[in-house]
C-alpha cells in the first residue's frame, strides 16, 4: 500500500493512498466542520456529495478551495484549514444555507438535536444579510403514517436519498427539480404514501435537520392517559432499553430496563408490559410453522415452502409486498411481536381484567417508525378498533419523560407487570440483527430434536456484516440460515429465492442496518457507528443475565396457551396471531 | 452506396468526385451549369431560405437555365439572411444577401442570364484554408 506524506495546518502526517484530507486531518486531531458528509464506516455507508462546501480548505497549487471530505491526499500536499480565506468562505456559505432555511428553531422538532443549528452555533453566525428580501424555497408538507416531510428545512445533504437508494434499494426518494427549488422527494413530488416507501425511517435517522421527522403520537398517548375511562397498556421493544439512556446523557450501551419501566409507571400507564413477551410468543408460532413446513419439505412435499422468512419487521414486509409479491407465500404468516401483543392484550388480558377492548388503549414504545404505519394497517383491527392504538418511538418517549419532569437516572429499577411482562433472553435478542433467528433456533432445535441444547449462544449468527450465513447442526440435520440487515442486502437474498438458487432453510431480515437497535426511531447516531455496536453488546448482555433464555420455557407463555390459545398454530392462534400479505407491485414502476 | 474498402480507394473516389459536377464543387469550365447554393442553416431557414430554394429550383428549370441548386451550411452573414452563392461558369462566386423572392427573380433574370450585377452583394470577408495545400 502506497503511503502519502502531506502537511495539514503545519503538521506532517503519513497516510495510505486514497485517504481523504478530512480523514487525514481527523487523525491529526483536526476536526474540520462538515454538514452533508456522513460516514458510518462499520456499515460501509459513506455519503460525500461534496454539496454543502462547509468542509473546504486551502490546498497548495489549487486555484479554488477543496472539499476535504472528497479530495484525496497527494504527495507533498500542503493544506490549511482555517486561514481567513477559508473562514470567510465557510461563514458566507453558511449564511447562504441559513438564508434559505425557516427560522423555526423555537418550535422545530429537531431543535437541540439539529446538525445545522449546531454548525451555525459553532461558526458564530449572528445575522443573515439580506434576509428582509431573501426568497425562501417552500414546499408542501407531507405527512404519512410514520414520517413527516417538511422540505423547507432540507439542505440537500442527500443522505436520505443515499440511504433510500443505495442502502435500502427502495428508491422512494431522489433529488427533483433544478436550482433553487431543488429538493429530495418521491417521483413527481407526490406524497410518501403513494410511493414505494416502506417507512423504515432510515432517512429520518440520517437527516441532519428537521426536514424529515417522525409523526408524533405523544399528545394522543397523553390524552389517553388522562382519560379516566381508558385503561392504558404499554409494551416496550427490546431495542429501546439499550438506547433510551443515551437521550439522558448515559453511555451508549447502558441497559436501563428497570428505569424505563419505572418511568413508564410514573407517567401514568396502567400496565407496563414487555414486547419481549410477545417476541417469545412469536417464536412459538413462527417456530412451529417453520418446523411444520420443514418436516413436509424434508419428506419431499413440493408444496412446502422453504425457505421461511421472518416477518416481524414491518419495513421488510412492506418491501417484499412491493418488490417480491410473487413470493408472498414464503414469509411466515406470524404477525410481529407488537401486533401479537396487541391482539392478546385486547382479548386474553382485557377479559382477565374485565375491560372492554374499546376502553383499552395499547401503546407501544418502538425503536421503529414503520411500527406507526403497521398498527394502522386495516387487517390489524377488530370492528375498527386497532389491536395497537399508538406506537411511539424511543425519541418521543425520551421527550415525553423529560416533559414530565422525570429524571430517569435517579429512578429505582422496577419490574414489568404480569402476565404480559415476563420474557426470556430469546425475546430480548430480537433487537439485534441475527437475534430473531437465533431465538427461533433455540426453540426449534429442542422441539425438533427433542434434545436439550448444550450451547445457547449461537455466536455464528451474530455480527454486523450485511449478509451472513451459518449452518446449524440440528442433531444431524444441517440447517442453513441466512441473515440480512439493510433492505439492499435483503434484496440480494430474495433474488436468490426467486431464481431458485437459495440454499437457505430460513432467512431473517431486518430492514434497518444493525437490526432494530439501528431503527429509524432510535436516538440519532450523527454518523457514529460505534454506538450501534455498543447497543448490540448490551442486548446480548441482557440476554445472558436472564434466568430463562428459551422462548418455550416462558411460564407465562405456557399459561397463555393452556388458558387461551390451546397450542401453537391452533385455529384461535391463527385467527389472532397470524396474517396475510398483499400485492403492492402496482406502486413500483418497472422498467422493461 | 458501397463500402470504401481502403485508403487508396478513398483517394480514388475523391479524384472522381472532384471532377464530377453532380457533386457541385467545381464549375470552372465554361459550359458547365450555373451553381446556386442556398444557406440552409437554422438562421437561414428561419428567414425564409426554403422558399428561396424552391423558387430557384422551379424557376431555373422553367426558364431553361442549366443549373445545379443545392443547400449548404451557414456562410456567416447572419445579419443578411437569406443568403445565396451564385457561381457562373468560369467566374468567381458571388454572394447575395437579403434574398427575397423578388430579388431571387432579379438575380435569375439579370445576373444569371446576363451577368449584370444586382444590389445586395455581400463581399466575402474571410479566407478559407485549402486542405490539399500543405502550406496555407
Amino acid at each position, binding site marked *: 500500500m502506497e503511503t502519502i506524506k502531506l502537511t495539514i495546518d503545519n503538521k506532517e502526517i503519513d497516510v495510505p493512498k486514497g485517504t481523504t484530507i478530512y480523514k487525514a486531518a481527523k487523525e491529526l486531531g483536526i476536526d474540520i466542520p462538515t454538514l452533508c458528509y456522513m460516514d458510518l464506516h462499520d456499515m460501509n455507508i459513506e455519503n460525500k456529495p461534496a454539496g454543502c462546501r462547509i468542509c473546504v480548505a486551502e490546498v497548495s497549487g489549487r486555484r479554488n478551495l477543496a472539499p476535504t471530505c472528497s479530495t484525496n491526499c497527494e504527495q507533498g500536499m500542503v493544506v490549511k484549514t482555517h486561514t481567513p480565506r477559508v473562514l470567510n468562505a465557510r461563514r458566507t456559505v453558511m449564511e447562504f444555507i441559513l438564508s434559505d432555511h425557516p427560522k423555526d428553531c423555537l418550535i422545530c422538532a429537531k431543535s437541540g438535536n439539529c446538525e445545522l443549528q449546531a454548525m451555525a452555533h459553532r461558526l458564530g453566525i449572528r445575522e443573515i444579510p439580506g434576509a428582509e428580501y431573501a426568497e425562501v424555497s417552500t414546499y408542501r408538507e407531507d405527512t404519512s403514517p410514520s414520517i413527516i416531510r417538511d422540505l423547507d428545512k432540507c439542505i440537500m445533504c442527500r443522505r436520505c436519498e443515499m440511504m433510500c437508494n443505495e442502502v435500502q434499494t427502495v428508491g422512494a426518494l431522489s433529488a427533483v427539480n433544478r436550482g433553487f427549488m431543488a429538493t429530495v422527494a418521491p417521483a413527481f413530488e407526490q406524497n410518501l404514501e403513494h410511493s414505494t416507501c416502506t417507512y423504515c425511517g432510515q432517512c429520518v435517522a440520517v437527516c441532519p435537520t428537521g426536514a424529515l421527522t417522525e409523526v408524533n403520537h405523544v399528545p394522543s398517548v397523553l390524552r389517553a392517559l388522562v382519560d379516566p375511562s381508558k385503561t392504558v397498556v404499554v409494551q416496550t421493544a427490546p431495542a429501546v432499553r439499550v438506547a433510551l439512556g443515551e437521550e439522558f446523557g448515559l453511555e451508549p450501551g447502558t441497559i436501563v430496563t428497570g428505569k424505563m419501566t419505572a418511568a413508564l409507571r410514573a407517567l401514568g400507564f396502567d400496565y407496563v408490559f414487555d414486547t419481549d413477551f410477545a417476541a417469545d410468543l412469536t417464536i412459538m408460532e413462527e417456530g412451529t410453522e417453520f418446523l411444520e413446513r420443514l418436516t413436509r419439505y424434508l419428506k419431499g412435499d413440493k408444496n412446502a415452502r422453504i425457505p421461511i422468512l421472518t416477518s416481524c419487521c414491518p419495513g421488510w414486509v412492506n418491501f417484499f409486498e412491493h418488490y417480491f409479491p410473487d413470493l408472498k407465500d414464503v414469509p411466515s404468516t406470524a404477525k410481529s411481536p407488537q401486533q401479537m401483543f396487541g391482539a392478546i392484550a385486547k382479548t386474553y388480558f382485557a377479559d382477565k381484567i374485565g375491560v372492554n377492548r374499546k376502553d383499552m388503549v395499547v401503546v407501544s414504545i418502538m425503536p421503529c417508525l414503520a411500527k406507526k404505519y403497521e398498527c394502522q394497517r386495516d387487517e390489524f383491527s377488530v370492528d375498527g378498533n386497532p389491536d395497537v392504538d399508538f406506537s411511539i418511538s424511543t425519541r418521543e418517549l425520551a421527550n415525553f419523560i423529560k416533559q414530565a419532569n422525570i429524571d430517569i437516572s435517579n429512578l429505582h429499577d422496577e419490574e414489568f407487570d404480569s402476565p404480559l411482562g415476563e420474557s426470556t433472553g430469546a425475546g430480548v435478542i430480537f433487537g439485534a440483527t441475527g437475534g430473531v433467528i437465533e431465538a427461533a433456533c433455540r426453540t426449534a432445535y429442542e422441539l425438533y430434536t427433542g434434545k436439550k441444547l448444550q450451547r445457547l449462544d449461537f455466536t455464528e449468527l451474530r455480527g454486523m456484516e450485511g449478509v451472513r450465513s451459518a449452518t446449524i447442526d440440528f442433531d444431524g440435520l444441517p440447517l442453513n440460515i441466512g441473515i440480512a440487515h439493510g433492505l439492499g442486502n435483503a434484496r440480494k437474498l430474495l433474488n436468490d429465492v426467486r431464481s431458485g438458487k437459495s440454499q437457505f432453510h430460513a432467512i431473517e431480515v431486518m430492514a434497518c442496518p444493525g437490526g432494530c437497535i439501528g431503527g429509524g426511531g432510535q436516538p440519532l447516531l450523527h454518523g457514529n457507528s460505534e454506538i450501534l455496536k455498543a447497543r448490540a453488546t448490551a442486548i446480548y448482555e441482557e440476554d445472558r443475565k436472564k434466568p430463562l433464555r428459551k422462548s418455550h420455557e416462558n411460564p407465562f407463555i405456557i399459561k397463555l396457551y393452556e388458558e387461551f390459545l390451546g397450542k401453537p398454530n391452533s385455529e384461535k392462534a391463527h385467527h389472532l396471531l397470524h396474517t396475510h400479505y398483499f400485492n403492492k407491485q402496482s406502486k413500483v414502476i418497472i422498467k422493461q | 452506396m458501397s463500402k470504401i474498402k481502403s485508403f487508396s480507394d478513398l483517394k480514388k473516389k475523391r479524384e472522381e468526385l472532384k471532377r464530377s459536377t453532380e457533386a457541385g464543387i467545381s464549375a470552372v469550365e465554361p459550359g458547365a451549369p450555373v451553381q446556386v447554393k442556398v444557406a440552409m442553416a437554422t438562421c437561414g431557414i428561419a428567414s425564409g431560405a426554403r422558399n428561396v430554394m424552391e423558387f430557384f429550383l422551379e424557376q431555373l428549370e422553367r426558364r431553361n437555365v442549366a443549373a445545379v441548386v443545392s443547400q449548404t451550411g451557414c456562410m*456567416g452573414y447572419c445579419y443578411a439572411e437569406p443568403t445565396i452563392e451564385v457561381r457562373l461558369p468560369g467566374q468567381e462566386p458571388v454572394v447575395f444577401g437579403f434574398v427575397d423572392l423578388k430579388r431571387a427573380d432579379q438575380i435569375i433574370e439579370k445576373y444569371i442570364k446576363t451577368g449584370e450585377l444586382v444590389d445586395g*452583394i455581400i463581399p466575402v470577408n474571410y479566407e478559407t484554408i485549402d486542405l490539399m495545400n500543405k502550406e496555407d
Partner: protein
Amino acid sequence: MSKYNRHLLVCGGTGCHASESDSIVCNLRDELEAKDLADSVQVIITGCFGFCGKGPIVKVMPDNTFYVEVKPDDAKEIIEEHIIKGRKVTRLLYKDPLSNQPIPDSAAISQFRKQLRIVLRNCGFINPENIDEYIAREGYQALGKVLTEMTPEEVIKEVKDSGQRGRGGAGFSTGLKWELARRNQSDEKYVVCNADEGDPGAFMDRSVLEGDPHSVLEAMAICGFSIGASNGLIYIRAEYPLAIERLKIAINQAREYGLLGSDILGTGFNFDIKLRYGAGAFVCGEETALIHSMEGLRGEPTVKPPFPAEAGYRGKPTNVNNVETFAAIPAIILKGAKWFSSIGTEKSKGTKVFALAGKINNVGLIEVPMGTTLREVIFEIGGGIRNGKKFKGIQTGGPSGGCLSDKHLDTPIDFDNLLAAGSIMGSGAMIVLDEDDCMVSMAKFFLEFTVEESCGKCAPCRIGNKRLHELLGQICEGKGSLEDLDRLRNMSIVIKDTALCGLGQTSPNPVLSMLDNYYDEYVAHVTDKKCPAGQCRSLMEYVINAENCVGCTACARVCPVNAISGERKEVHLINPAICIKCGACMEKCKFDAIFIR
C-alpha cells in the same frame, strides 16, 4: 452574356453609408451617363466589406482594384482616369500599413486575412447532407492517413504540438487530454463530443453541425484511434433538431461507405458513433454532468478528480471534447502541427469561431486567428455599433464571462489575455453593449440565467447565485447601499471559490468584471439612485418641461396615482414621491412636454 464589362462595387455597409456612400453611387452613375458609359459599366451597392475603418470603399471589377476613403467628389476622377484611361487612381489605393506602398490588386490585401476559416472550412461550400461533397473536399483523408500511416502516439504528438486548446471554454490542451485518456488501461473507452452548447447567444457548434457534420465524425474516429476507443457518443441538445437530423444523415452515410463501423478502410479499426440527447439543461454541458446524464442519472456534476479520462462514462476512461475542438482536427492532421501553431499567439494557437451578437451591425458567425484584437472584431469585421451609438462594453464567454470595456479594446484575443482582463474565452458568444445598456441590469440578466440553470447540488451556487441576483435587483430598484457593493464582491468571490463545478465557479464573473470596469455606474445606482444608461425604470424620473407645458391637464387626468398637480393653463408638476413611472402621462402629452431623466 453580360453586357457590362466592368463593375464598380460601392460598399453600402452602415459605416460607409454614414460617410455618404449613397452620394458616391449617385455621382458615379451621373459621370457614367455623362460619358455615355452607362451601358457598359455597372455601379452596384454591396453589403459591408468589413473594412469600416477605411470606408467608404469602392471596388473595381474585374481587375480587383480596391479604393479606400473615397469621397463623392472622387467619382469624376475614378471614371475619367481609371475607367476611361485605364490608369488607377494611386492616391485612393489602399496602402499596406507596413511598407506604406499602395496595393493595386485587392487579392493581396492582408486585411482579408482577418478572418481565416479552418473550423468553418466547408460551411457554405458543401451540402451537409451529401457525403460525396465532403469527400471531394478532402473529407476522411485525415482519417485514412492516421489509420494507415501513423501510430496513436504520433497522432497524439501531432495534436499536442499543434498547441490546440479546447474550444468549449476551459481551454485545456487537447493533445494532453487525449494522452491522459490513452494512458489509462481499459477494455472499453469512450470518445464523447459535447454538443450541448448552452451559452445563450452561442451558435458556433450548431453551425458546424448543420454545415459540416462529417468533420466532427471524422475527428471523433481519429480520437478513438489515438486513445484506444471504439465507441463514440455525441451528446447534443434537443433544441437543435436540424443539427440532429443532419448528424443522423451523416452518420448513416458514413456507415454506408464503411467510414464508420467495423474494419474502417480495411485497417481493422472499429469505431461507431451514437447520438444522445440533452433535455434542456445548461449544466449538462459540464463534462461530468453530461456523462451522468448519458448514464441515465440526474444531470449533476461530481467532484473531479477522478477526471473522465480516468473514470468517465460507466466508469471507463472517456475523452470529452467540444464540437469546435473536433472540427479542426482533420485540418491539423492534413496540414500539420507546424502550420496550425504558426497561427495565433504564443499560448493560444489556431483560430476561434465567435458568434457576434448585440448592438453591432454585422451580426453573425466569424472565425479569426487568436491574437485578433477586440477592436478589429467589433469595428472592422463587425461593422461597428448599430445606429451610431457609442460602444460601452463587450461580454465574452456568455453568463460565465466578464464584460470588457473600451480600455480593453486593443487586447489581442486569446485564452490568457481574456482571463487576465477579468473575463474568459468561453465557448465564443460575444455580446456587444452600447451606451443604452445598463451594466447593473446586464449583470442581473446573466444571473437570472445561471440561477435558472444551476443544478442545485452545492449550496454556494444554488443559494448564493440567487442572493446575488436578489441583491442586484435591489440595486436596480434604488434600494442598495455602498456596503451592498462590498457584499456583492464578497459573495461573488466566495461563490467562485467554493462552487463545485464550472457553472458556479464562473457565474459571478459578470458581477466581478462589471464592478471592476464599471464601478462608477454601480455607485451611481446606490448613492445617487440614478441609472446613467436610462434602463432601470425605478431610478428614472418623469419630469415636465416647463417650456413646453401649456397646462392642458391631460396628463393629470390620466395619471392613475394622482401624482400630477397644476392649474389649468399653468405649468404642471409631477411629484416624484408618488409617481409609479407607468409612462401614461408621457403617452398622453401632445406637446412633448414630458421627458425621462
